[in-house]
């Protein structure tokens, strides 16, 4: 009997293995039933569009809600959303939106201008914890109300003239406003649902959960299995429902890029959120049609500590900038098709591309000269300086490449400080660094999305940069109606920024996905936004 024990154990284990035949994959079934399987990586904290902390989950929100405008899936220009048309006053300060008569919430209530006014009031309430409040500051009176200096909401430039007419009054022209009002921070929330769960401006009351959430997008929330998936189902009450072909979308919550890639290969996913760096070359060779690597509206950069030596000296900052060979830095991660940065704003916004006297370039001789002028000939006497970054293979790689470039071209050796994420962000706010890893992703397709970060006193202006000339140029650009003249003002503003270098742009990221050939109507674009209204699955 003892001799047969291994056999018995092996049989016991074999019973684990089911069917022993190739099963039908989720992708295969999905193609037949119009069920899209897309991974979105980390789980969202909440599905309340006004509580998002980053734009990473916009693709889920776009299924559940719709703003005044929507986006063309190819180039993202604003198209009618809940508003079917709009009028803009001659001075560019008053926008009147005319809402569709057939726009409905998922419970059947009509979507009205009052819903948008309510949502703006909620967003601007001083109690409401959102990092995106400043996106409403463009409205007249919004800043004072948001800071609690004024308590009368009627002073804010959002007015529901009637159920189907919404008027926005701006404090200065904003050529990107039509784009902005399609974004997640401007998506409306359903007042009765929000207030049934707590005060109108109380965060995290749980109203945005399955069975409770009332949205106005092409899909409704069907299930949220924590750590597994968020499932949305076609919303029959959506005004454009007859053109929506997808029946369901499963947003998977796989955080690990390797796990995700294996799931893709075994037919569990149509669209991945990442591509493991080690797999980029393989896919480029074996399945180039499934690999999407396209420019992303973002800039990878380092922040200087402007408050203390050595980087309080603009000559030192410039020397460090000139000593970087961006082309070879990008080439060292060649599979990612990174674009070396000449300035802060990524190219691609209506033809804007930064050029100028202070455009970033590689000039080691000039870099050494500047460093000598600043009192550190050949790096002699240069104080000890830390380059801090949060733990990640990419940040580590970039930091090591730059450390070598600076050592070779300037004779200066910076210390690398690889710091756990939360510690890093806490220290960054306290400015406990000489150089820190940073980055920016634009929320709307306009150079203003990048340049406005560095306005004096701005909420995300961690470096504390202040230059009245730069502020004037950026504000003047908003008032300019002619696009060529506006781009010229942006060019001058960016040139001033690159002269002062409060931040050191390195390259522009790319977005990287694996997309199954059966996915139709999904187009690579600069913000990686993919409206689902026109998406469908082929054979």
């Amino acid at each position, binding site marked *: 009997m003892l001799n047969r024990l291994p056999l018995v154990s092996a049989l016991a284990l074999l019973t684990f293995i089911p069917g022993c035949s190739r*099963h039908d994959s989720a992708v295969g079934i999905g193609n037949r039933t119009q069920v899209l399987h897309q991974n979105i990586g980390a789980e969202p904290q909440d599905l309340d569009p006004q509580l998002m902390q980053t734009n990473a989950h916009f693709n889920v929100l776009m299924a559940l809600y719709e703003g005044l405008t929507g986006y063309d899936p190819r180039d993202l220009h604003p198209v009618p959303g809940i508003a079917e048309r709009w009028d803009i006053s001659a001075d560019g300060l008053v926008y009147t939106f005319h809402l569709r008569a057939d726009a409905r919430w998922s419970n059947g209530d009509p979507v009205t201008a009052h819903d948008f006014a309510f949502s703006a009031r909620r967003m601007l309430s*001083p109690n*409401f914890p959102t990092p995106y409040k400043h996106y409403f500051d463009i409205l007249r009176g919004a800043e004072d109300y948001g800071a609690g200096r004024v308590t009368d909401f009627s002073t804010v430039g959002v007015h529901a003239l009637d159920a189907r007419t919404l008027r926005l009054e701006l404090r200065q022209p904003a050529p990107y406003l039509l784009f902005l009002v399609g974004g997640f921070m401007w998506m409306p929330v359903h007042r009765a649902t929000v207030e049934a769960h707590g005060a109108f401006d109380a965060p995290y009351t749980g109203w945005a959960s399955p069975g409770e959430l009332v949205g106005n997008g092409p899909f409704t929330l069907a299930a949220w299995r*924590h750590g597994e998936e968020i499932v949305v189902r076609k919303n029959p009450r959506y005004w454009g429902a007859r053109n929506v072909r997808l029946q369901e979308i499963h947003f998977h919550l796989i*955080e690990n890029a390797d796990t995700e890639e294996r799931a893709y*290969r075994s037919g569990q996913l149509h669209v991945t959120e990442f591509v493991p760096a080690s797999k980029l070359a393989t896919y480029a060779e074996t399945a180039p049609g499934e690999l999407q690597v396209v420019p992303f509206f973002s800039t990878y950069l380092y922040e200087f500590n402007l408050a203390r030596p050595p980087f309080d000296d603009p000559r030192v900052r410039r020397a460090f900038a000139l000593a970087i060979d961006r082309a070879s830095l990008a080439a060292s991660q060649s599979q990612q098709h990174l674009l070396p940065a000449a300035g802060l704003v990524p190219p691609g916004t209506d033809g804007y591309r930064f050029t100028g006297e202070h455009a970033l370039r590689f000039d080691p001789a000039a870099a050494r000269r500047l460093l000598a002028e600043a009192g550190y000939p050949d790096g002699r006497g240069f104080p000890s300086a830390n380059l801090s970054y949060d733990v990640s293979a990419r940040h580590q790689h970039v930091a090591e490449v730059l450390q070598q470039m600076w050592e070779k071209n300037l004779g200066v050796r910076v210390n690398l400080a690889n710091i756990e994420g939360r510690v890093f962000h806490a220290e960054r706010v306290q400015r406990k660094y000489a150089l820190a890893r940073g980055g920016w992703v634009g929320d709307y397709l306009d150079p203003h999305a990048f340049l406005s970060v560095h306005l004096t006193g701005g909420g995300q202006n961690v470096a504390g940069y202040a230059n009245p000339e730069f502020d004037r140029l950026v504000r003047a650009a908003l008032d300019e109606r002619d696009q060529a003249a506006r781009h010229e003002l942006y060019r001058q503003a960016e040139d001033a920024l690159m002269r002062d270098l409060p931040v050191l742009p390195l390259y522009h990221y790319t977005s990287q996905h694996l997309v199954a050939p059966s996915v139709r109507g999904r187009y690579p674009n600069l913000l990686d936004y993919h409206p689902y209204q026109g998406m469908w699955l082929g054979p």
Partner: protein
Amino acid sequence: MLRFIAHRLLQAVPVLFIIIAVSFFMLRLAPGGPFTAEKAIPPEILRNLEAHYGLDKPLHVQFFTYLGKVVLHGDLGPSFKYSNRTVNEIIADKLPVSLELGGLALLVALVLGLTFGILAALRRNTFLDYLYSTVGMLGICVPTFVFGPLLVLLFAIQLGWVNASGWYTWQDRVLPALTLGFVFSAYIMRLTRAGMLEVLHQDYIRTARAKGASEVRIVLRHALRGGLLPVVAFLGPGTADLLTGSFVIETIFQVPGLGREFVNSAFNRDYTLVLGTVILFAVLIVACNLVVDLVQVWLNPKLKFE
């Protein structure tokens, strides 16, 4: 025996208190907080949030408030990351998954480990012994993040029998349980082999043989009881470890268990979730050790409840 159990339970109280206190203060002394993020939140909103969660009070007040809620109501507080869920809800949601995975893995580990451990001991220094021992050593040496993806490559991607990841159908349980169980089976196999070898040389086994007892009877009735002692000692903390989830296995196979929550909660500075999982793990380990001690006394006539 009841006195022994009562005594051990009393001992557990200060142990748990110290674990909670040390974790609480270590966590709070770590830089960064639950609301630290790449995009800075305006200071006045940060203050509102901190007041909402009581983080603005002195640390010792927060500690005793927390301790009071845990002890009196079993209330582990709201999670900071998953803002509209409580830690109790998260544990109730995820612990069953970890228990299921851990239980299956334990089954795999015991079936494989005991069988091959006993066989290796009985066929000492033969080809079979070397084979089992080599595989066992491999099981200990090859990390799960290598073994798991290899299984996925074969069974999910090449053969297409199961999914590469997820936790939806019973088929999804197979690969994670095998991966996690295999590693543990290797330890159990080596401990069983060593334990059995020691016992098989004892006088009472020779006596049993002399009496003409069958080999099966000798092994299962007489030798196994003593031979399992090292395995049982290992199973105490081992079981607690298996049942509370594995960060690596849960990440490789996208299993929505507690292990991933535990590790991520530390990165997220989700104070209440970290403490909640720490308390749960501590209680499980204390409980498993107690059970192991009871089993050991039962198995080993030389031990008494003292």
